[in-house]
C-alpha cells in the first residue's frame, strides 16, 4: 500500500475553549494502492480536507496510524516525506510575483539541499512538469497574472515536479473548464499508470466516475461506502450521502447524475 490510514480519529480544538475539541473524523480507515485513483466524495465540511491533511502529516491524528510506503509517517524526515507525498491545494496564496517556472521549481525542494539552489536537472524536471499540464509556453509569465484555472494547473505542475509516490489533490477540478477537466482526467490516469497512487476530493460525481478506480463516500466523519465507482456511485447511496434525491442514468457507458 502506498498509503494506509488506520482507525483515524482527528479534528481541531474547538473555538474559544482550551479543553473542548471538535472531532471531524471518527475512526476512519483509508487505503490507496499504487496505480489507483481514489476519489473522496461528501458534503461540505464532512472532513474530506481533514482526511487529506492527516494523510499528508499536516494534522496529527488524535488516534490511529498513518503509514506511507509501509513506514510510519511520523518517523519520516521532511525531505523523505516531500519525496513520497505531494499536495495540490485548492488555492495557494502567493505574495510575490514569482515566474511560473520559479514557482514550479519549488516542487524540487525535497531534492535540493537546504544550502543549495536547484540544479539544471531540477529546472529540466520543472519544465517537463509544466509541459505535462499544458502550460509550457507560459513558464516565464508571472504567477500573479494567472487565472484561477491556470493557477490550479500550475499547482499541479509543482506537485508533479515533486515526483511523489502519492499525489493528494484537494478539489482539483473546481476552477477548470471542460477541456481542462478532460486534460486533468487524462493526466491523472497517466500518473496512475506509472504506479503513483492518486487521492483526490471532488464534489462532482461525474468527475469521480470519469477517472476513479475507487470511490469513498464520507459522511459525518465516517465512511459510508467504499468500492469501485459502479458499485458506490448509485442513486440510493448518493441520495443518502447528500440527503437529497439523486438519480443515476447511464448513456453510452457513462453515468449521468440528476439532482
Amino acid at each position: 500500500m502506498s498509503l494506509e490510514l488506520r482507525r483515524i480519529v482527528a479534528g481541531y480544538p474547538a473555538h474559544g475553549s482550551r479543553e473542548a475539541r471538535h472531532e471531524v473524523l471518527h475512526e476512519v480507515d483509508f487505503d490507496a494502492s499504487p496505480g489507483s485513483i481514489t476519489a473522496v466524495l461528501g458534503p461540505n465540511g464532512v472532513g474530506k480536507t481533514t482526511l487529506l491533511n492527516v494523510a499528508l502529516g499536516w494534522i496529527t491524528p488524535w488516534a490511529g496510524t498513518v503509514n506511507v510506503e509501509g513506514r510510519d509517517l511520523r518517523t519520516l524526515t521532511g525531505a523523505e516525506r516531500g519525496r513520497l507525498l505531494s499536495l495540490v491545494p485548492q488555492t495557494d496564496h502567493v505574495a510575490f510575483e514569482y515566474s511560473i517556472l520559479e514557482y514550479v521549481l519549488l516542487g524540487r525542494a525535497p531534492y535540493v539541499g537546504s544550502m543549495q539552489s536547484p540544479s539544471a536537472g531540477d529546472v529540466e524536471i520543472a519544465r517537463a512538469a509544466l509541459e505535462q499540464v499544458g502550460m509550457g509556453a507560459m513558464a516565464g509569465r508571472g504567477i500573479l497574472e494567472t487565472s484561477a484555472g491556470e493557477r490550479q494547473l500550475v499547482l499541479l505542475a509543482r506537485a508533479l515536479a515533486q515526483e511523489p509516490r502519492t499525489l493528494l489533490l484537494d478539489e482539483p477540478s473546481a476552477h477548470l473548464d471542460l477541456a481542462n477537466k478532460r486534460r486533468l482526467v487524462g493526466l491523472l490516469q497517466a500518473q496512475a499508470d506509472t504506479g503513483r497512487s492518486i487521492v483526490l476530493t471532488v464534489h462532482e460525481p461525474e468527475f469521480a466516475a470519469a477517472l476513479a478506480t475507487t470511490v469513498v463516500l464520507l459522511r459525518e466523519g465516517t465512511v459510508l461506502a467504499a468500492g469501485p465507482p459502479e458499485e458506490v456511485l448509485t442513486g440510493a447511496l448518493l441520495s443518502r450521502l447528500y440527503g437529497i434525491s439523486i438519480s443515476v442514468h447511464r448513456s453510452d457507458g457513462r453515468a449521468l447524475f440528476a439532482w
Partner: protein
Amino acid sequence: MLVAVVTLVGRYPSPGFMSPTLLVRDPLALRLVLDLRLPRILAAVLLGAGLGVAGIVLQTLFGNPLVEPGLIGVSQGSAFGAALVLVAFAPPLWVVQWVSALTGGLGLLVSYRIARRFRFGGWILRLVLSGIAVSALFSAGVGIVKFVADPLSQLPTITFWLLGSLAATSWSRLAQVAPVVLLAVAYAWSRRWRLNLLALEDRVSFSLGASPGRERLALLVAATAATASLVSISGIVGWVGLLVPHAARRLVGADTTHALPVSALLGAVFVLASDTVARTIIVGEIPLGIVTSLIGASGFILLLVRNQVRVVR
C-alpha cells in the same frame, strides 16, 4: 556574488573633496580618514546590507511585502531599551548595545506571542496588527524616558539616536556588532533559495518537505539579531528594510536566490549614499534616519503611484 558586492562597494571613492595626494602629505587627513571615515563607511555598508537582508527575509517569511523591522516591534523595542539604559545608568556603549538587542528581540517575541493569541484575521494580519500595537507601546515607553531625561545632557543624545546616525561610529563599536550581523546575513544568504518556500502557506511549504515553524523561527532570530545589533550603533534608520527589498524584486524578480543578494547590495549603496549626504551637505550633520526616510518614503510613494508595487490579499 560576494565578490561582485565587494567590488561594487569598492568603487565608491571615499567621499568628500579631499584629493588623494593630501592623504600622503597630511598626516591629520590620513588619521581622519582612517579613524573616522573608514569605520563609518564600513558601518554604513554593513548597516545597509544588514537592513536590506533583514527586510527581505522578514517580508518573505511573513509573505507580506509591507513588513519591515520597524513594523513588528524590533526597532522600537531596541530604541526603548537603549533610551532606558542611557537615562538610567549612563552605561558604557556595549551595555547599551546588548540591552537594545535584547529589547529588540523582546519586541518581536511579544508581537509574536500576542499575534498567536488573536482570534481574528489571518496570520499575517495578526502579526502586523500586534506589531503595530507593540511598537506603539515601546514608542510610548521611549516618550516617558524622554520626559524624565535630563533635557541638557541626556535628551539630545536620545533624540539624535532615535533619528538615526552613524556619527559616533568607531572601530571598536563596529567590531562589536559586525560579527553578529555578518553571521546573521551569512545564514540567510546560505539559505536564500529555501527562503522562497517559507513565503508559501504553511501547509504548502510543509507538503514540500519543509518544517515551516522551525525554519521560520531560525531566520526570524537571524533577522532580529542583525537588526537589533545594527540599531544599537546607528539608532533607528527607517525605510531601508521596506524600500530596498521592493527595489530588488523589481530588478531581478521575486526569487530570493537573486533578490536577497541584490537587496544586500542596494541596501549598502543606499545607506552609504545617504550617510555621505548626511555628513557632507551641511557643516553640522543631518541625522541619517531623516535622509533615508526622506529618500525612502518619496521613492516608495513613487513606486506606489506608478503602480509597480503589487500588494495581494
